[in-house]
């Protein structure tokens, strides 16, 4: 994708939130790739997952070490082809990558929001993204695409704005979290909340951050992102120094991997954001407002949908995607579902797996063919 520059927009009109709260004034940071066509019909929104951002593809500078998180799938000639589509990626509210979040200054107090930042939900994000679409002159998305928590946003888009989305592409997602999913999130939150450096979420005022808690949360997360098979394949019981040391330093390669993931997460990610994102996941349940009937919750949907799942994903297993598929076909909607064989676990949605790329490309060809001339 080459060099890209994020943009920023301020929204002075208050955003009412699902919690009953309100965000008086906020900013959204976003990136775009490609060009919006004359009738603004070729816009595609990419929604990010828990630790993602608006930086989907390309590099921010010449010496940027890593490209955006979905570089494999977004760019010229890629599945989401920036020569055909105007691709928009927005950093969600509450995040720590530029959009208004817990680390931003609360205009009411002049201090960082910290724990006062209101809880935001998937529906709140979608409402804020709709305002971004308004400002960019996009009345209707050709497609809204996302993996994991991003896929949940694509589904919420289809429910909340049926006339503003032509296609939803929901990858490695679920219609709601299971007790087991919530349990993992709760352990991650407890690690942060009980870290002495958390200071009730006001760690910014103490010039510190709950590094230990955030590290443990991230390590736990990474265990759920990988499958048992890929862990065995990548690390097995390999020893870092070739022998047992009989101490509590790193002995196994998997320990080294988790510590490395944890180290690279702290300093780059905000603990309050982690708490908030995991809560947004836990609370996501569109069927909850429809008597626990997902088909009834999806009754307003008009979009055509592609649902993709990965065989070894146990965080959001294929069976969870099938629940979405069923609710869509119960409504006689156009839906296709493919189960991609992959050993990577939940992380597979980030990978350039050939069959995954082929199916995404084929589907986006259909989206492109359906654009108004």
């Amino acid at each position, binding site marked *: 994708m080459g060099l890209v520059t994020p943009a920023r927009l301020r929204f002075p009109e208050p955003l009412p939130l699902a919690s009953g709260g309100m965000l008086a004034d906020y900013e959204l940071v976003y990136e775009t790739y490609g060009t919006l066509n004359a009738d603004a019909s070729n816009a595609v929104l990419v929604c990010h997952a828990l630790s993602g951002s608006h930086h989907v593809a390309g590099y921010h500078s010449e010496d940027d070490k890593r490209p955006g998180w979905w570089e494999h799938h977004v760019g010229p000639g890629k599945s989401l082809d920036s020569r055909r589509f105007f691709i928009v990626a927005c950093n969600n509210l509450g995040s720590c990558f530029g959009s208004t979040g817990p680390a931003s200054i609360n205009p009411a107090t002049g201090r960082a929001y910290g724990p006062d930042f209101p809880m935001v939900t998937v529906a709140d994000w979608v409402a804020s993204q709709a305002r971004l679409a308004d400002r960019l002159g996009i009345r209707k998305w050709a497609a809204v695409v996302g993996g994991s928590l991003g896929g949940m946003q694509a589904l919420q888009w289809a429910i909340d704005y049926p006339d503003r989305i032509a296609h939803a592409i929901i990858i490695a997602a679920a219609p709601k979290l299971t007790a087991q999913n919530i349990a993992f999130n709760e352990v991650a939150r407890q690690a942060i909340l009980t870290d002495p450096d958390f200071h009730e979420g006001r760690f910014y005022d103490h010039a510190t951050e709950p590094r230990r808690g955030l590290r443990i949360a991230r390590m736990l997360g990474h265990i759920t992102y990988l499958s048992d098979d890929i862990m065995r394949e990548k690390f097995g019981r390999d020893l870092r120094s070739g022998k047992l040391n009989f101490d509590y330093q790193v002995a196994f390669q998997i320990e080294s991997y988790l510590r490395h993931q944890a180290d690279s997460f702290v300093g780059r990610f905000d603990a309050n954001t982690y708490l908030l994102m995991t809560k947004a996941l836990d609370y996501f349940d569109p069927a909850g407002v429809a008597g626990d009937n997902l088909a009834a919750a999806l009754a307003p949907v008009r979009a055509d949908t592609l649902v993709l799942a990965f065989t070894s994903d146990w965080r959001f297993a294929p069976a969870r995607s099938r629940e979405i598929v069923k609710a869509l076909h119960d409504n006689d909607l156009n*839906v*296709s579902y493919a*189960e991609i064989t992959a050993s990577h676990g939940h992380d597979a949605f980030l990978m350039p797996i050939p*069959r995954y790329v082929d*199916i995404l490309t*084929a589907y986006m060809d*259909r989206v492109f063919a359906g654009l108004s001339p």
Partner: protein
Amino acid sequence: MMPARIDFRIIGDWIRPGSRVLDLGCGDGSLLAYLARSKGASGYGLEIDDTHVGECIKRGVNVIQTDLDAGLSEFDEGSFDYVVLSLTLQAVRYPDRLLREMLRVGTEGIVTFPNFGHWRTRWQLGVLGRMPVSTALPHEWYNTPNIHLCTLRDFASLCEREGIEVLESQVVDHAHRRRLALRLLPNLLGEIALYRFRRARLP
């Protein structure tokens, strides 16, 4: 455009315009695409094969990747006007259960299968003593996916046992032609059998 296969045309002639169709083992989606084009039909294909699923998506046919042997439990009763099982009956684990399932989720069922009673099949097995291999059944015994082969008579008797009323049937030869001789001796000369059926009304 290539003229449609005769089995597609027969199925197309059987279904009412604008029908909701579920195609079990839909392959590359060409039947559903044909029915959408010629009859304004809509619905879904179920398919297990990776390549076929990709072809359906390319074609713009709704496809759900699934194993038919796992059943149709995710579909509610009476969701479709027709449930089609085209050249797949012989490859499923429980043909009898699947027929029952077809008539649970659909008002009518349409099944096509290679007729094991065809004279060439009988010749190969009965006279030559070899497992039959033909255009309709191209596999060897050791690599065939076809584990539940039957003849027209076998299928008719299963329908009777299951309380299934056959509404229409046809046979075609391997070139998918319909000829007079086929009508006279269907179980001997028909290579592909096509049936349309529904649950028999209680007397």
